[in-house]
């Protein structure tokens, strides 16, 4: 590989001032691509886990009233209704301690069940594959249990998953635009190079060089610049990813299931510079061949 780059070139492309900026531009694009791709892969994992994991659950909430004994009656009525619902596999009333823990991030340490009327929460798990009409359950509950509400995880999960899919589509578009920008930049750089070295290229032609011989020199140069820029972008991108990973890790799965890149994700991200370099190489080659085809 080093021998490949050490090869003598018949055109002094490595001294072209106009192409010196190319690695930096490619570094920047690969940096963005690394972030976009990592984001996409992480969200993918999250969406999949949520899709399977939490679909069959919902939470019934009973708001506290003035009178605690009234609350107990409401809770019993609610449980009776749940028990008579076929689709429901299991249900469990959350302990006050657990409810407090859930509220803690909003209320801080001051929360205490004695001072604060707490809502009653019931975790409900459906039979796998069961099709429950959450709206109907809500109606039945509301009829007999004032202040009750049903939090159907499936609804907000569906929304969350579709949000994630949208973000992923955006990330894919970002990757696509990065590829297009790379292509555009390489075309511009290559055309400038062709103009600068027009005289030498003409001599090469007159000596009997095939277009592909000339194109190879540009392609080799674009590959070298692309790899240099790509690796630079990766070197900048990976610490950024690790920093984001660290910050997400500190949130400890509170809102998000653990957000991290699996091994093969790192490989995919690591392949980005190679991909961009190959795009640069193929673009340079195509550009040269197209331009030369117009010469004699």
């Amino acid at each position, binding site marked *: 590989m080093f021998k490949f780059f050490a090869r003598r070139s018949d055109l002094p492309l490595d001294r072209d001032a106009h192409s010196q900026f190319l690695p930096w531009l490619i570094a920047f694009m690969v940096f963005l691509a690394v972030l976009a791709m990592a984001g996409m892969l992480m969200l993918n994992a999250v969406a999949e886990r949520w899709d399977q994991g939490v679909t069959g659950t919902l939470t019934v909430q009973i708001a506290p009233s003035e009178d605690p004994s009234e609350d107990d009656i409401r809770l019993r009525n609610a449980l009776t209704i749940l028990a008579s619902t076929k689709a429901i596999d299991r249900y469990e009333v959350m302990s006050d301690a657990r409810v407090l823990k859930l509220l803690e991030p909003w209320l801080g340490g001051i929360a205490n069940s004695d001072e604060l009327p707490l809502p009653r929460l019931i975790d409900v798990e459906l039979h796998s594959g069961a099709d429950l009409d959450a709206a109907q359950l809500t109606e039945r509950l509301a009829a007999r249990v004032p202040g009750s509400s049903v939090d159907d995880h499936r609804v907000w999960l569906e929304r969350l998953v579709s949000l994630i899919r949208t973000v992923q589509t955006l990330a894919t578009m970002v990757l696509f635009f990065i590829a297009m920008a790379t292509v555009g930049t390489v075309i511009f750089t290559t055309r400038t190079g062709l103009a600068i070295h027009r005289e030498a290229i003409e*001599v*090469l032609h007159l*000596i009997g*060089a095939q277009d592909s011989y000339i194109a190879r020199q540009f392609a080799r140069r674009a590959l070298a610049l692309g790899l240099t820029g790509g690796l630079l972008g990766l070197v900048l991108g990976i610490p950024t990813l690790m920093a984001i990973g660290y910050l997400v890790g500190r949130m400890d799965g509170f809102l998000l299931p653990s957000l991290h890149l699996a091994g093969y994700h790192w490989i995919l991200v690591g392949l980005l510079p190679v991909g961009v370099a190959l795009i640069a190489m193929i673009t340079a080659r195509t550009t040269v061949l197209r331009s030369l085809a117009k010469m004699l």
Partner: protein
Amino acid sequence: MAAASDDAIIRFENVGLRYGLGPEVLKDVNFELAKGSFHFLIGESGAGKSSLLKLIYLALKPSRGLISLFGHDIAVTSRHQLPALRRRVGVVFQEFRLLNHLSAFDNVALPLRVAGAKENLVKKHVTELLTWVGLQSHMEARPPTLSGGQQQRVSIARAIIARPRLLLADEPTGNVDDVMGFRLMHLFEELNRLGTTVVIATHNMQVVERLGHGRLLLDDGNLTVKPPQPKKETVAAASRLSKGEEDALAAAEQAAIADPFGDFPDENETFGDPASLGNYL
């Protein structure tokens, strides 16, 4: 004329050339050159010599007419096949057209490399030929650091390194004295003896007339072909030369013959014996 076609390396039929919308600089040019022939292309400055050579080495397309090179009608030859034709033509350009960022060695190596020659063969042949033209100690020098005469020898080496079947030279004696001019001509004659067809553009009539050979005369874009002339020992008869000039020219030719390897006027470098050129190609 048609009978000779099989043997023709170059054939022009009613060729005209104009640059852009300008006037025709070549008008109805008709000729053919037999394999192994040696011709001078003669004409005043601006007569169209360089333009004609450019048509032959496929740097220009004619505005009209037919050009056939090695039996290929170039109008119907695909772009893809042109490099193969060009590799059979060696050109000594008027302004040399060396690549300034490459060493003398790499410049001379180009025709071999574009043809895909193996690097060890490239090294062997280029080293030998550069040694033969007296540049063994300048192989790594870049053209801008070389004298005009040295650059010319690099460009001649580049033109002949791949043993072209056709050699074209555009005013190769333009920048050298008469002794050196004769040496170059003897070199081209030796190449011709080895089987290469040669066309040399020049406006130095004196040298031409002393050497004989066929002539292509260009006058304001009109071409006339003259068959090989016997060598003239003296050109005094047709002469625009004084006796003194005539003697000087004769002395120059004698000097070139007596000392074919010659010390170059400006450097202590020797040209190889033309007769040994065959060993290097």
